[in-house]
């Protein structure tokens, strides 16, 4: 099992969700985060006081999939989250040691 973690632009969340549902991946966790990579921040000015804001709002989604579905998942995310502008985000894939469905007690692939 693999955990696919993607940092994406916030307005792309619904597109990514639709794309994943279309390939049969049901279930994700989304959180609001701040971050930066190559995308520059912006400057806010309040009565002459300037503040440079480096951290930009992003959405982090985590999707747990069986190892054989990783490729399709990553491709689906890329296709739906991409805008071509700097700041589109990144995808990381990590291994999952164990997964459990709380309601039923099913483990590993049955829990995904």
């Amino acid at each position, binding site marked *: 099992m693999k955990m696919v973690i993607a940092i994406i632009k916030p307005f792309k969340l619904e597109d990514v969700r639709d794309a994943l549902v279309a390939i049969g991946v049901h279930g994700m966790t989304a959180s609001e985060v701040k971050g930066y990579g190559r995308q520059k921040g912006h400057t806010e*000015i309040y009565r*002459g006081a300037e503040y440079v804001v480096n951290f930009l709002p992003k959405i982090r989604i985590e999707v747990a999939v069986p190892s054989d579905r990783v490729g399709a998942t990553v491709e689906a995310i890329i296709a739906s989250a991409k805008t071509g502008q700097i700041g589109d985000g990144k995808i990381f894939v990590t291994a999952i040691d164990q997964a459990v469905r709380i309601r039923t007690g099913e483990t590993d692939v049955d829990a995904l």
Partner: protein
Amino acid sequence: MTRDSGRMACGIAATLGLIFAAAPALAQEAISPIDGGDTAWMIAATALVLMMTIPGLALFYCGMVRKKNVLATMAQSVACTALCSLLWFAVGYSLSFAGDAPWLGTFERLFLRGIGMETTSAFAPTIPELLYVTYQMAFAIFTVALIAGAVADRMRFSAFLWFAAGWLLFVYVPIAHWVWGGGFLASAGVLDFAGGTVVQLNAGIAGLVAAYVLGKRHGYGTDNFAPHDLSLAVIGTGLLWVGWLGFTGGSALGANARAVFAIAATHLAASTGALTWMFLEWWTRGKPSVLGLISGAIAGLAAVTPASGFVLPWHGVVIGLIAGALCFWACTWVKRRIGYDDSLDVFGVHGIGGAAGTLLTGVFAVAVLSASPDAPEGSPGLFEGNARQVLIQLYAVIAVLIWSGVLTYILLKAIGFLLPLRVSEQHEIEGLDLTQHGEALQ
């Protein structure tokens, strides 16, 4: 009962006895006919001015501080409203408006004794005196609440309460007496319709002094101090702007044409101030900010306050323009140059605006509008050929500047001997909401 609580109970009983002894007058005061129209308007104006503090100023200020200090900032407005109201009723009104000594009022109206249903004040002969008391109370509260903006994010709540009480009695009351209560500035012919000196400049200077005495906020100049929620500040501005129509309109102390002239000049000054600041910021910074719009409006309101009932509507436009530009410059360029941390620009907007407006009153005052039973010819300003009025206004500005500045400093230092004025650095970092009040926005 313990000995201490027994003493306290006696003290409370004595105080209550005094308060209730001030009930319906048997004393024979000079009685003027109370006018229903004037009274109705003044009741409404009182409510409008009270609204300016709660929640007008509370919202205006809290929207501009960081999230961790929002509730604490509001607490200052609400608490000082409550505290200063009681002090005003007890002794503040009497010392401001009773008697006609040049420096201070008398205790004639201590705990409002002698005020009955038919009693009127010589200053407002067509409305019940108790209404005049309450109307003036709303001004006093607003002035004290204004100062809180200068020391936002770092003042200890207990110290602030002591300061509010002391400042009302030692700074506001004397100045109110000098300008409005028949004191020496009134005798000198100072024109201050609704409080350019008594309220705006007074609070502005006190704010500047307080900002210096308390020192800069931790992280000032380096950390991100972006406002928590400017939409709250905009709502606050709306309440202030609308309430200001009672602040100036009500200062005519009657439902008459002068009140309307005051309201017109007030509204035009606010509008012009807002646009002036907006355009200046657009030109110098590239974008017109919402904070700039509302700051300009308040600057215009502060400046037109002393002039409002004495000038023509178009004068209000000019005053708004000058105030918008002057205060914009003061809050951006001057503040950065001198380096003081007046958190919410009490001095830059109210201090500078009030001073400028007071002087401009001497320029624009119209004899016909400034006529009163005491001065039937009125007091013309520079434009009507009386250059001396500007000097009289300057005299008032200097007197208020000195008294407010020096007394505020002494008061803060005195309180500082008893308890720290600022919260600890750790508490300042954690935020006043949690550390001073045990509460947090969720």
